[in-house]
């Protein structure tokens, strides 16, 4: 019976790591599908106000157009001042430039979606209402009446 090697007592067989890549790939695909790429970097402070009577907004929904507002972050403060400003796409802008922005956003979408477009206002909670009022005024002039004040749920 010399053919059969006697197993050494107490030695565990090595765990196979062959399935590890598969597991990691699965995780990878999960994250690739559920997440959204950061599309633009923020040049303004953006701490959202707190509210609990809120509705979900789908991020992958192409009906939504985003307007950011807040104080310029460090590095931009010397260029744009310390008062709250708007950020449209990658640029710091004035409320008067909103009209152009809305037209550009409309041009990106198909004809059927345009009447259902809505605006998501991502405004820093320490901003003044003056800026927000100016934005609302411009939106009304352009007939973009559906808006959403984006906010976060307060921590319990």
């Amino acid at each position, binding site marked *: 019976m010399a053919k059969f090697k006697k197993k050494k007592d107490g030695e565990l067989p090595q765990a196979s790591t062959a399935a590890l890549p598969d597991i990691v790939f699965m995780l*990878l695909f999960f994250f690739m599908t559920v997440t959204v790429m950061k599309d633009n970097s923020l040049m303004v402070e953006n701490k959202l106000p707190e509210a609990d009577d809120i*509705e*979900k907004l789908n991020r992958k929904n192409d009906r939504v157009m985003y307007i950011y507002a807040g104080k310029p972050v460090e590095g931009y403060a010397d260029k744009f001042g310390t008062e709250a400003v708007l950020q449209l796409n990658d640029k710091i802008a004035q409320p008067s430039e909103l009209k152009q922005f809305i037209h550009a956003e409309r041009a990106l979408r198909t004809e059927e979606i345009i009447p259902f477009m809505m605006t998501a206002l991502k405004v820093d909670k320490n*901003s003044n209402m003056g800026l927000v009022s100016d934005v609302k005024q411009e939106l009304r002039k352009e007939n*973009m009446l559906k808006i959403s004040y984006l906010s*976060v749920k307060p921590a319990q």
Partner: protein
Amino acid sequence: MAKRSIPEVNAGSMADIAFLLLIFFLVTTTIEQDNGITRKLPRWEDVPPPNPPVIKKKNIFTVVVNKNDQMLVEDELMELKDLKKAAIEFIDNGGGVGTEGEKCDYCQGERSESSSDHPSKAIIALKNERETTYSTYVAIQNELGAAYTELRNREAVRLYGQGNSYTRMNAIYKDPKVKDDALKAKLDTRLKKIKKMYPQIISEAESKSN
């Protein structure tokens, strides 16, 4: 020549590569969901309409926020925590008849003569100054919205039973994963009915410039 066996490719580093990719995606992507208070802005009028409809003062619930973030409700100073209750009392008063001449038979308010006639006539007018802080404004909008939600939930539960609150039905209706068209149609009629009972009329007036 003797047959050479093909050497096996070493797949040991595969996991490392996949981990690298995984970490890259973890860092560059966001999983956060946007939540917000949705409101509808009034239409822009280049010229004010010639004959604006006359609205009785008792049907308007004025909320004014000043630049120090203090709130005046119906000309009286009020704390934020009391706003929801006051708004519900005003909307749910039902002292008179609605826009179509009907009485509010589902209102549970005091039916006082000096408060709103009917939920369909009750207007909440929110005014702010340019210096008002945005977070205060959103907190007030939130409380006003919550007042309507509470009333709508109450009626939904009364009409359709426990577990069919307005918030829940709305969430199911808006969920893109729910594909059941018959259910959606049913929810749509229910939601429309409740929205008609308590229409959300919040007027966001232009801010005063001082």
